[in-house]
């Protein structure tokens, strides 16, 4: 199948949506499909993977205290149009088309089988609520909507008055299997791991530090390995002086180092107290074969199969966490059983499985277009001088759907 993916955020700036598009593209290519990704690119020098087509630079836009890098304007519109025309895609798959971005620009010019994935999970987005009537005519062209989390699906239901199928993010299970632990880890006295922003309260590191302080007094060999950006001094200050050298702060680690991080600990702890839409870190730990202990958030409970594939503890409760950890640290057999069930569970979340689900959406949407299996670009008014292209016949407003509708 020929698939055109549109990434709204710059390809050379790491981010959640960009990583999702990259991983989906690679999983689809691995499954034998032909994929082209249209994405903004800020740095012309940066080498791009062969499947990426650059759509121009982004413009920084300040919104809600942070800077969003978005792309719009006639140059991007023209490149999107040319990409649609040259690609002749069987399915066009846009990401986050509800934002003012390359995805929306492409949507405005496209017709045919169109799928969109909604990433944003913001049930009270005032911008989305205000923009929704203006976006409606464009969003109506989308025939299959995907949400990456239950929260993202709720956002669609509340603001865009539609529904979506839920297909969560995937992990590359293979890259996490069999990694070499860091030298000296996990050691014999027990090692716990945490990954996430250390100064973001919702990630719950303070809950884990509390539980660790309690456990460590009676377990002289127990250590805690912390990976993630943030101010390490605050973390050290929150610990009793005699425990400080048993908490190792790695700072921000690269994607390449993540598998080694998970392999270096006996238990991975996700003490989040809220705000997590999907437990991707849990899945990574499970893929690495590290047993998981996580707070009892909805998303975590789902990923951990109601506690069968990882242990759950009451949200924000350091006592309960300490008791759970102590039980598992003392029982290697239970840890191993938990790791085995985790590894079995995570197979369903591998990108290959996710790509299969997404292909099911493509097939369903394509079936609604029996007469026109191939995606076409609209003739665009602002480009009358465009040389005639035999592959796109000018068509009436109804576009490729006219036949199916008559």
């Amino acid at each position, binding site marked *: 199948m020929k698939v055109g993916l549109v990434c709204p955020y710059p390809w050379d700036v790491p981010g959640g949506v960009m990583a999702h598009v990259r991983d989906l593209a690679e999983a689809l290519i691995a499954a034998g499909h032909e994929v082209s990704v249209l994405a903004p690119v800020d740095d012309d020098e940066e080498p791009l993977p062969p499947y990426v087509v650059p759509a121009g630079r982004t413009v920084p836009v300040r919104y809600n205290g942070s800077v969003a890098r978005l792309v719009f304007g006639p140059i991007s519109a023209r490149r999107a149009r040319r990409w649609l025309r040259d690609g002749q895609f069987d399915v066009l798959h846009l990401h986050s088309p509800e934002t003012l971005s390359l995805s929306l620009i492409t949507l405005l010019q496209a017709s045919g089988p169109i799928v969109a994935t909604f990433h944003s999970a913001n049930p009270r987005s005032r911008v989305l609520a205000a923009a929704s009537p203006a976006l*409606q*005519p464009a969003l*109506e*062209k989308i*025939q*299959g*909507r*995907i949400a990456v989390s239950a929260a993202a699906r709720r956002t669609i239901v509340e603001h865009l*008055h*539609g*529904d*979506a*199928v*839920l*297909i969560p993010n995937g992990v590359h299970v293979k890259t996490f299997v069999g990694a070499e632990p860091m030298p000296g880890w996990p050691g014999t006295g027990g090692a716990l791991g945490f990954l996430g922003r250390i100064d973001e309260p919702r990630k719950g590191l303070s809950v884990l530090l509390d539980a660790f302080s309690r456990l460590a007094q009676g377990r002289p060999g127990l250590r805690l390995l912390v990976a993630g950006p943030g101010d390490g001094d605050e973390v050290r200050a929150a610990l009793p002086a005699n425990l400080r050298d048993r908490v190792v702060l790695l700072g921000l680690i690269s994607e390449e180092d993540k598998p080694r991080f998970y392999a270096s600990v006996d238990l991975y702890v996700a003490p989040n107290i809220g705000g997590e839409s999907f437990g991707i870190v849990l899945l990574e730990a499970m893929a690495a074969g590290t047993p998981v202990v996580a707070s009892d958030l909805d998303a975590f409970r789902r990923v951990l199969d109601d506690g069968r594939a990882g242990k759950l503890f009451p949200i924000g409760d350091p006592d309960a966490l300490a008791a759970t950890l102590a039980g598992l640290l003392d029982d290697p057999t239970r840890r191993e059983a938990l790791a085995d069930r985790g590894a079995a569970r995570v197979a*369903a*979340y*591998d990108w290959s*499985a*996710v790509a*299969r*689900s997404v292909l*099911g*959406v493509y*097939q*369903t*949407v394509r*079936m*609604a*277009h*029996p007469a026109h299996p191939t995606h076409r670009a609209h003739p665009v008014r602002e480009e009358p001088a465009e040389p005639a292209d035999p592959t796109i016949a000018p068509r009436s*407003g*109804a*576009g490729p*759907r*006219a036949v*199916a*509708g008559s």
Partner: protein
Amino acid sequence: MLNVVAVVSAVVLLATYLTWLAGRLDRLHARTDGARASLDAQLVRRAASAMAVAEYAVAAGLLSVATARALSSAARVASTAGVAERESAENDLSRSLHTAVPLLGQRDADLRGLLADLAAACSHVVLARRFYNDAVRDTRSVRRRHLVRWLRLSGHAPTPGYFEIDDTPTTALTALDPAQPT
């Protein structure tokens, strides 16, 4: 003179808007029809998969005669039902699948293959039905507008109806492929 210009531009603007609105409605009806065709195709595929499973189960003696007969007759009725009886026929098939599938087990590769087909067909029904109902919702919301109703912009196209059935796949099937969309 100014008045004339104002009136003429207002008429031109209104006409442009109405043309655009009529085109938008036309596209929505086409999308709904396409989604319906896709839904029908997936339902037919589900009925065919269910029939194949029922035939296998009868030949292998995996189901009681009554259960097997209920499943194959539900599948047959569903695949031939007219528009009016479609929803209830598909619901009967869903119910028969909920009863029969957990009794089958997975004794050999042939059965597992048939069940995998059935699982895929069931999850495609979920997708197609959600996309169809989405198209219906979008179409109806534009059809409800005053201008569309007063000027009969939807022409002779009938108001599309939602398709409501219970299509939750049985756990015995989702266990075969837990990554299927929900």
